[in-house]
């Protein structure tokens, strides 16, 4: 299984190198191999998750390691779908970079399959984590698009405005996708909490931050659809939204407890997958 994991890593890394080379040399010819490597990596990673699922006898979405693996896979998957519509090599390279970073970060956590504490033995949990990370991946790709847009639309930039417009639309589409899945993710999380603890919402930091993220993107959707925000202003909300995603995912676990000096003893209050 470790072999498979390493293969995925190598495939993504190779895809990254090839796409960076293609970007720097502006040689379109190498773009296809980069894409091939990315697809191969994604297929291998799906296989890895399937094998892990089989070995553990449960969906492999229950701790930091597993969720990061899922995250990197979902980023690649979302990018591959987006690529059908717009083919911008920079976006591909950036998405591959994020996937590689997520996998590298995953390997900082133990990959042993550990037994789950009773509260985590729930199908709601698997659906919850899966949908959340699909949503996060949508936001990750929207973030890439927003940054690319901000660069492309700088004053004096050489980029054609078609490119900027395409990016603008891509950000919107990926946010809509991310928003739908984040919504499903928050809802399944609430249903799971209610079935395990008898409360669908307790305002714990993890929940609250997922709601903050949701609010930010709700504001984006209204500003964009109803008030016609386009361009840089909308792109900045997309950047803020992804910052909130990262804080919800990682910051809440590692930064917030530090604010309270008793954190070491008290442990995380969110008895979610992160507590295991």
């Amino acid at each position, binding site marked *: 299984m470790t072999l498979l994991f390493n293969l995925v890593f190598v495939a993504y890394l190779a895809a990254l190198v090839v796409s960076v080379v293609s970007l720097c040399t502006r040689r379109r010819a190498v773009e296809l191999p980069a894409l091939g490597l990315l697809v191969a990596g994604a297929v291998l990673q799906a296989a890895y998750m399937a094998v892990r699922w089989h070995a553990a006898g449960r969906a492999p979405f229950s701790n930091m390691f597993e969720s990061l693996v899922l995250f990197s896979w979902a980023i690649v998957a979302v990018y591959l779908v987006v690529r059908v519509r717009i083919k911008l090599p920079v976006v591909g390279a950036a998405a591959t970079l994020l996937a590689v970073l997520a996998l590298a970060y995953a390997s900082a956590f133990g990959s042993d399959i550990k037994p789950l504490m*009773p509260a985590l033995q729930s199908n709601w949990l698997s659906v919850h984590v899966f949908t959340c990370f699909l949503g996060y991946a949508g936001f990750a790709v929207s973030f890439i698009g927003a940054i690319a847009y901000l660069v492309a639309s700088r004053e004096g930039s050489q980029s054609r405005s078609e490119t900027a417009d395409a990016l603008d639309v891509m950000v919107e589409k990926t946010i809509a996708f991310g*928003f*739908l899945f984040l919504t499903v993710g928050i809802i399944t999380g609430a249903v799971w909490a209610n*079935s395990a603890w008898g409360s669908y919402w307790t305002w714990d930091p993890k929940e609250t931050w997922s709601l903050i993220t949701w*609010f930010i993107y709700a*504001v984006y959707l209204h500003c964009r659809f109803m*008030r*016609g925000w386009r361009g840089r202003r909308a792109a900045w909300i997309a950047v803020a939204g992804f910052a909130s995603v990262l804080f919800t995912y990682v910051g809440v676990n590692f930064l917030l407890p530090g604010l309270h000096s008793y954190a*070491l003893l008290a442990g995380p209050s969110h008895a979610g997958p992160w507590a295991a």
Partner: protein
Amino acid sequence: MTDGRDPASPVQTGRSGKAPLGRLIALLASVSFASSVVAALAVACVIGTLLPQGEEVARYLRKNPGGMARMERLDFLGLTHVFSCWWFLALLGLLALSLTICTFRRGRAALKSKGRARGRAIGSMLTHISLLLVLAGGVMRGVFGERGQMPLHEGDTKAEFVEDGTTVALPFSIHLVKFELEVHSESPAVERKARIIDERLLVKQPETGRQWKLSSKVGTEKRLKLKGGAAGATGPIELRVVRKVADFVVDTRGVANRSDEPRNPALLVETVAGGVTNQQWLFAFHPDFNMHGADGAASVLDFRYEVKVDDPGKPQVKDYKSTLQVLDGTNVVVAKTIEVNAPLRYGGYTFYQSGFNPQDLKWTSLQVVRDPGVPVVYAGFLFMIIGLAAVFYLYPQAPPGRPRRSNTSEVE
């Protein structure tokens, strides 16, 4: 770029005329007002996760008695219980008001429009109504909800539970037939030893709430400069970590380390204060045994040795179950074995397996919940998913090429 206010936005122009009430309603239903309320809620949520809330406040004060005045000020502003304070509830109220008005104002137009625009308008209406349902369910939980604990011993029958220290009667009784605990026998990591993954030495001056976080490495030295009160007499305190053992025992030769595993981690700390030298052991798992001296440093400072242990060999709880019977008088009306994630529902109440007593496995602990808002909230959840799917995927905005906002004007 078409940045900026959209002149065609129907909400901005409104159709309620110039009457003050009409203008207020137009404001409440405007997208910019709604976005501001949502943004304000987001900011409130950030505050609520950064400041200690509820029970955390008591813990914070125990650690920082000097922080009392600050906490009182925060409490006055509602900042120690953001999610239940008046201004947060008022923001939620504004959100609900705004949602209600905009749903009514646009409802008719939405139903009259045609084709894709109609689907989209209904989808967005459904999304907004779903939020109202979730909020309404939350209100029902607040007003009619009950929540408490019910500890039960095997063989016990009870018709009451405890909510915030008061006993609440149930219209039926619950009988615990038996409690079972299962542990994972084949823990794959048993050969790996327990180890300390994080540790530190905390020193606190209770009088002022000042706190030092120090390394717990042997040899660590620190000169602590105290301020204020009785500490003034003591002057600076020299502190040194002298010795550390993972598994503290006292045998014939004095203090010894029974094993390499952190079963009873302890730290020997030496302090020199005002010419008085003191040595004291700090026990990570038994802070109550930390010595509190009448003289020297221990009289003005609290010491704490904190460790976090990773123990893969510890038997892991796989599941725990309680076999319950619901009794109406003496008749058994329902029997069910509950476990985490599989509660028992009866008569509007739900009984969750919430805990057990590791010292006495004849005891179970149930969480008792009555929340008539849940079906309303769940209906909201369902509508929200359908509504969003409709807006984004079933009736997406006009394909590129046509002016992008054309369908919103159709709504109006």
